[in-house]
């Protein structure tokens, strides 16, 4: 039966929710991750600690635990956002750790001479970081950052556990109302691929354009 075609508008709406969650969370994660990577290579000891603690704590906790903790635990101390906003906050906080580690690895690929040269020109640490090191670092980690993005598309599915009506939520709901799990899941899977595969191509294209060739 044409469960998927009959519910095409619902699938398209849900796909848009998933895409929105992913893109907004990724942009925030890039901000957080870059900042934290900067912390972790900075000469300021407390910031290095902060960066390390954040990365190790958040990265080693299952995303679903973070979501439950944020939504059902943190409200007890008055930290409370809408479920959609909560999903974005948790997804970007979690993904931020992976961005941070990737960017840090990228920073490490920048030749030490670059930093030394910048220093001898009298640049401060933040000038050195933002003007010299990061631009080069990003170019060498386009592919890994792309992997992080694609992982985020998949991870965004966990938002369905906190009442965000994304593709996974729709899948469960339609399974329930139609009793046709196989077709419904194939449909959801198809729309996830529709997001993931073009992202993969775009990342590949972008990488070929900007990647540092060594």
């Amino acid at each position, binding site marked *: 039966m044409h469960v998927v075609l009959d519910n095409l508008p619902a699938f398209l709406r849900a796909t848009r929710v998933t895409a929105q969650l992913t893109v907004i969370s990724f942009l925030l994660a890039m901000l957080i991750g870059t900042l934290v990577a900067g912390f972790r290579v900075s000469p300021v000891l407390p910031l290095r600690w902060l960066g390390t603690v954040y990365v190790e704590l958040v990265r*080693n906790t*299952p995303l679903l635990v973070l979501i439950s903790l944020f939504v059902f*635990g943190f409200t007890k*101390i008055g930290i409370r956002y809408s479920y959609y906003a909560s999903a974005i906050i948790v997804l970007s906080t979690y993904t931020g750790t992976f961005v941070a580690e990737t960017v840090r*690895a990228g920073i490490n*690929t920048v030749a030490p001479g670059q*930093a030394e040269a910048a220093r001898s020109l009298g640049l401060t640490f933040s000038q050195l970081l933002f003007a010299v090191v990061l631009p080069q670092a990003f170019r060498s980690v386009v592919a890994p950052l792309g992997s992080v993005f*694609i992982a985020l598309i998949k991870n965004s599915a966990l938002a369905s556990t906190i009442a965000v009506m994304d593709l*996974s939520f729709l899948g*469960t709901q339609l399974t329930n109302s139609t009793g046709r799990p196989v077709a419904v899941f194939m449909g959801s899977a198809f729309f996830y691929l529709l997001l993931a595969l073009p992202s993969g191509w775009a990342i590949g294209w972008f990488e070929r354009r900007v990647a540092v060739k060594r």
Partner: protein
Amino acid sequence: MTAPFIAESLGPRGKRRVAVVSAVAGAAIAALVVVAFLRLLHKGQFSDRLVAPLRLWAVQRFVLLGLLETVKAAIVAMALAMALGTLLALGRLSRNVLTRWLAGIYVDLFRAMPLILLILFCSLGLPKLGIHLQPFGGVVLALTAYNGAVLGEIFRAGILSLERGQSEAASALGFSYWQSMRLVIVPQAARRMIPAIVSQLVTLLKDTSLGSVIGFDELLRRAENTGTYYGNSLQVLTEAAVIYIVINFTLSRLARRLEVRQRRRYKAGPIVVPGGGMDLAVMGAQGTASAI
């Protein structure tokens, strides 16, 4: 950890500035911690009614038995996923076009799937196709199908990371394709891949928590049940998080140690060698090799 290279060798003025910034940042962080603590205290989150249940041995036992399920599922799924990954990697490196394509399509499809969708499918969809699984079986199957694809890619990249010379030398010695794979390529590649495999294990262990959505009776589910019963979700979920962190942190550290040792042994790696680029082990250990 000592100061990273880009922050080394500061002049006197730089040192002064770093000292000031350190003091300010340190004070800000300390203030934040104090505020968080006071907030918890003010909201009564340290009260006996909420914390005492966690000290009961019966409750601890309840939660730890959930951890046991988590670990069991992780071990079984990891073993199966490694077997599947090996098949997929060999399939993708096969000289038969069809095999290569089939393995490739499997890997691409399953790596692009959200795991939760696979888990829900195993629980709600497979029965329609006549396959009936208990929650444990469903979770293990979904984890295997997904991680098999991820590990397959890791294995393939590991094999490809060997210099061509290795397989050329093997064939010069008269080894067949399978002989050279078995005796020369795989043993060397396997050693290089260990860090990436360990870090994938961390990912897999975290992902077992998704089983809670289909009623798999693991750590998170039991923590949630406890939280509902005593109304102390914050406390009990924090406890669960700490358990996950301790296990995964230990495993991550292990992965990093192996990686460092390896880099020293093979003198190959991205950090100092120009032209090294990002190698797989590093990406794996940092969890960015396609699987988070």
